[in-house]
């Protein structure tokens, strides 16, 4: 028997801050920004006093901002006290897991209205400290001491993937190019620039400084230039890695029967799955993320639909290889075929399987606790036809969000439906 939600859950409003590096703003300021936008987005308005529970995804405010116990503080900052407020920590999947907690809380019948948020303020720390903080998501006894970094883990998965499927490593660079193309159309993206725009900017900067102006034949030549796109962890280069970001996002969940009170354009959460795993070395497969396969299985089963029904997906492209693996783990392509799909442009906005129309973590930015909620903001906008310049064509019915923590120790998958 497929596991079902005991009652339906709808999203009636969403908001997000800009993603980027904001020295003047703390995480609570960023959340205020997201919350105010969410308030505007609820068509028929809502009374903040109606909110019964607040789940907040955040990975490490302790290290990033020297602040623990963040949920009640953030709640008070948007005037929600004494609402039950809980921080959810599952590394970079904190946001997706917070969403799932909100969905389950409403489905249980215990509450009717839940605010789900995600936030992270990462750029106050120097780069090396950020790397060390992110490493806390790996096994501190048996992984971190080996010298593995997060780019390193995903690079190792890329090495196994490329070897197993004889994949062309250019596919990785194509994912980066595509996500920058999409991010260029997202006003809230940290990298609101296509790769050709990045190239032009580098040229004009060099000219301004009186330095020799670099020349590249095309985007791929730029992506393969070790000066413009240095190797971080072979085979992953700088433009294979999502950035260090600040940002917040929020969505308002209500029980299905209350949706019409708030909006005529609700989006329904029809599938939710979550799975866990041990350290990377312990897994049967190094060329995909088993927890993603399991979370997707649960979500599809609950939704009663199949991968081919999904119109588009926001996936966790913390590194370019992660997007290729996700496109297979979610069932859009067979294992070993995702790299070809990326090379052939099938995951572009005008392709057969659009992935990360928002620009993904790569271009939109990756404030880790916010990312999983930010994905839902994009799905809501796309399904409601209000994604502006980057709006996908055609009638969209089903969207999917895939959020990964660490190297895949956690994965959450959610499926959303636009009715009528």
């Amino acid at each position, binding site marked *: 028997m497929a596991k079902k939600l005991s009652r339906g859950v709808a999203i009636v409003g969403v908001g997000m801050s800009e993603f980027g590096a904001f020295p003047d703003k703390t995480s609570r300021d960023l959340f205020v920004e997201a919350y105010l936008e969410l308030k505007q987005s609820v068509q028929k308005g809502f009374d903040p006093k109606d909110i019964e529970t607040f789940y907040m995804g955040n990975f490490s405010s302790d290290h990033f901002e020297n602040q623990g116990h963040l949920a009640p503080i953030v709640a008070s900052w948007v005037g929600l006290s004494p609402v039950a407020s809980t921080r959810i920590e599952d590394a970079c999947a904190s946001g997706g897991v917070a969403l799932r907690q909100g969905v389950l809380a409403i489905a249980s019948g215990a509450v009717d209205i839940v605010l789900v948020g995600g936030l992270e303020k990462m750029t106050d720390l120097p780069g090396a400290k950020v*790397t060390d903080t992110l490493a806390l998501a790996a096994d501190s*006894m*048996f992984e971190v001491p*080996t010298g593995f970094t997060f780019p390193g883990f995903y690079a190792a998965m890329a*090495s196994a993937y490329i070897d197993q499927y004889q994949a062309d490593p250019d596919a990785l660079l194509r994912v980066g190019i595509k996500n920058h193309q999409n991010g260029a159309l997202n006003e809230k993206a940290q990298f609101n620039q296509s790769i050709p725009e990045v190239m032009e900017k580098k040229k004009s900067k060099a000219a301004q400084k009186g330095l020799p102006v670099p020349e590249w034949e095309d985007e791929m030549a730029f992506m393969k230039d070790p000066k413009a796109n240095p190797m971080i*962890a072979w085979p992953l280069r700088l433009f294979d890695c999502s950035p260090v970001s600040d940002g917040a996002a929020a969505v308002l969940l209500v029980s299905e029967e209350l949706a019409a009170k708030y909006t005529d354009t609700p989006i329904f959460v029809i599938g939710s799955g979550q799975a866990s795993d041990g*350290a990377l*070395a312990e897994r049967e497969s190094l060329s995909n993320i088993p927890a993603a396969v399991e979370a997707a299985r649960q979500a599809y089963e609950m939704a009663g639909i199949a991968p081919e029904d999904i119109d588009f997906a926001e996936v966790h492209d913390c590194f370019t290889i992660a997007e290729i693996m996700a496109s297979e783990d979610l069932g859009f392509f067979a294992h070993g075929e995702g790299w070809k799909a990326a090379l052939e442009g099938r995951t572009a906005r005008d392709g057969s399987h659009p992935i990360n129309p928002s620009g993904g973590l790569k271009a939109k930015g990756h404030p880790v606790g916010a990312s999983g909620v930010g994905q839902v903001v994009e799905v809501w906008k796309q399904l409601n036809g209000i994604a502006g310049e980057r709006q996908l064509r055609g009638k969209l019915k089903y969207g999917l969000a895939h959020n990964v923590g660490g190297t895949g120790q956690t994965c959450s998958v959610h499926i959303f439906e636009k009715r009528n």
Partner: protein
Amino acid sequence: MTEHSLYSREFDQAIAQDVLIGSRCLDCAYTSVPQRQICPRCHADRVQRVELSGRGTLAAFTVIYIPPTSMAEAGYNAKNPYCVGIVSLAEGPRISAQIVGLDLSDPSAIKINTPLKQASIVRGEGDAARKFLAFEPA
């Protein structure tokens, strides 16, 4: 005779003696590295500490040019990168470790399935010196 436990710290204590340990399930014979008190495959809690051969092959790897603080302190940087990988041990399980003794000038020339044997690497100096598990070409 030394009393051994299956506590998680026992692994590093064994590495300090150049011994690679794991556990074998007395019910299903599955070998775990590092050692576990509960078999991850069949959930039995009748497990026995075992010493492994230290032989294996390279299952996945990377060469890291931007090191974390601990590796930067050990002298690694973009000009002096290091290789870290996942090793498939002869007894079945896999483990993460630094891979030493490889030519890192062209990582694309490093082959998955390269035979490896257990080695060690000391990082840190004086009182901070610590021996870590490593592997090298066999």
